[in-house]
């Protein structure tokens, strides 16, 4: 049953995504402006038969904008092939500081808008409430019951004291794919976090995405 639900959701999303051409791995082609929410006209043009596709399109546009800024900063300070651990850490910290400056007004919901949050919860629901719920929750349980406990704040670092909890493959299969610069992580076994891989900062999050 879960497979059926997953397939239907995936087909629905894929139809919407392919229709608007938003699901791409390389997001470097985004605009340099603050993302504008997709207009009603655009939504209607994108996929009139699939309301979810407009939400995903909006999510991808906002994400594109973030990634483009991040890549522009990284381009100025690429990591050397023979970088030492100290250099890798320094680059991470510098990038994080620069991102905080250019995103000083960033807040929760800028990328995971309420509509996106609602959709993502719905997409994950079959995996956390269906027949695979036990396996999903087991996958979220880390060593000795240790899980990432993070006080979620946009632009804050993922604490170095906390493990980077594994994101179950079945959840990843149900969510829109991300470019390599960012990733989904789960904190406190239930919050979905958008984490910048290179800068180790929290870009956005959805409280209680897993219920």
């Amino acid at each position, binding site marked *: 049953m879960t497979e059926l639900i997953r397939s239907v959701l995936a087909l629905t999303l894929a139809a919407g995504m392919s229709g608007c051409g938003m699901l791409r*791995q390389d997001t470097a082609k985004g605009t340099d402006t603050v993302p504008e929410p997709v207009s009603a006209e655009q939504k209607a043009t994108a996929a009139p038969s699939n309301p979810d596709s407009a939400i995903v399109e909006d999510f991808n546009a906002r994400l594109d904008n973030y990634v483009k800024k991040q890549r522009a900063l990284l381009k100025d300070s690429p*990591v050397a*092939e*023979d*970088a*030492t*651990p*100290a250099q*890798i*850490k320094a680059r*991470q910290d510098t990038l994080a500081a620069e991102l905080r400056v250019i995103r000083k007004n960033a807040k929760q919901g800028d990328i995971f808008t309420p509509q996106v949050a609602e959709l993502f919860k719905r997409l994950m629901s079959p995996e956390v409430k269906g027949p*695979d719920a036990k*396996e*999903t929750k*087991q*996958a979220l*349980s*880390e*060593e*000795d*019951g240790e899980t990432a406990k993070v006080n979620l704040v946009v632009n804050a670092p*993922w604490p*170095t*004291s906390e*493990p*980077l*909890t*594994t*994101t*179950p*493959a*079945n959840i*990843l*299969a149900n969510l829109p*794919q*991300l470019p*390599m610069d960012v*990733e989904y992580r789960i904190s406190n076994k239930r919050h979905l976090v958008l984490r910048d*891989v*290179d800068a*180790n900062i929290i870009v956005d999050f959805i409280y209680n995405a897993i219920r």
Partner: protein
Amino acid sequence: MRRVLLSILLLALTGPLAAQELKLPNKDGSVKFAVVGDTGTGGSDQYAVGKQIVNFRAKFPFDFAIMLGDNMYGGQGGPKDFAKKFETPYKPLLDAKVKFYAALGNHDNPNQRSYTGFNMNGERYYSFKPSLNAGVRFFALDSNYMDPKQLEWFEKELAASGSDWKIAFFHHPPYASGMHGSDEILKGQLEPLFIKYGVNVVFTGHEHFYERIKPQKGVQYFVEGSSAKLRKGDINPTGLTAFGYDSGYTFMLAEIVGDELFFQTVTAQAQTIDSGVVKKGTDNRVVGTAGQGTAAKPVPAAPSAKPAAPPSKPNTQRPTPK
């Protein structure tokens, strides 16, 4: 009392003599490598295992080692962590130009992919051939983040690989008999690819013990997650277990000779607790594994300058045995 003392003395003397008993064929021109998992504690046990790997390499000159994740515990890997938890314990190996190929664990910052010592070339998942004519390709996967993109990459790599031996390594075990148990979600994603494209052997960590799984659908699975961390008594033997050892710290040596992959699992006290051979057929599927696991008796640990790692927390989330 005298007998006890004599026994301890005998063990102390014969232990090192029994140590470094090499069981692999150790043939010229074969592919030789070491396997370590869950290494990054920086504790005395990691150093003790590291010392034995160095000792064994004197007789078994492998050129590379694979790391099965959790390369940096206790933080996400600051510069000091790399020194304490990798560069120092394996310094003699690194000085001898042994290459370490790492997979990421759930305690690892993905930025480790940029660290040259792990030979990941900036990628969270990658493949490599130890030499052009080796007939084997290794696939390092990021099991913390098995997204569709990675699965697609893995399938393409497997399809394009003409190697007879295809060896995958990553952190979370699709089959295991410990606290975490088999990762059913991951198994559902990866096993069909293993079978379809002829992956022969899979090395994983995560569970802090050593376990050799009975071949599953033509694939031999090993769990080697006790190269620095140990959860004593955690193996809950199931029908999956061919041999398990959860009483001490271990590492593995492996050697590929033609259609056979020989393995030897050794403790920090240099006792061999398992050894054998994985045989593959002409269709590259594993046709059987012959192993000689032995329940090694506890051996007094060598005096250590550092205190032993604290015992594991009580197991609070034991899964239902499968």
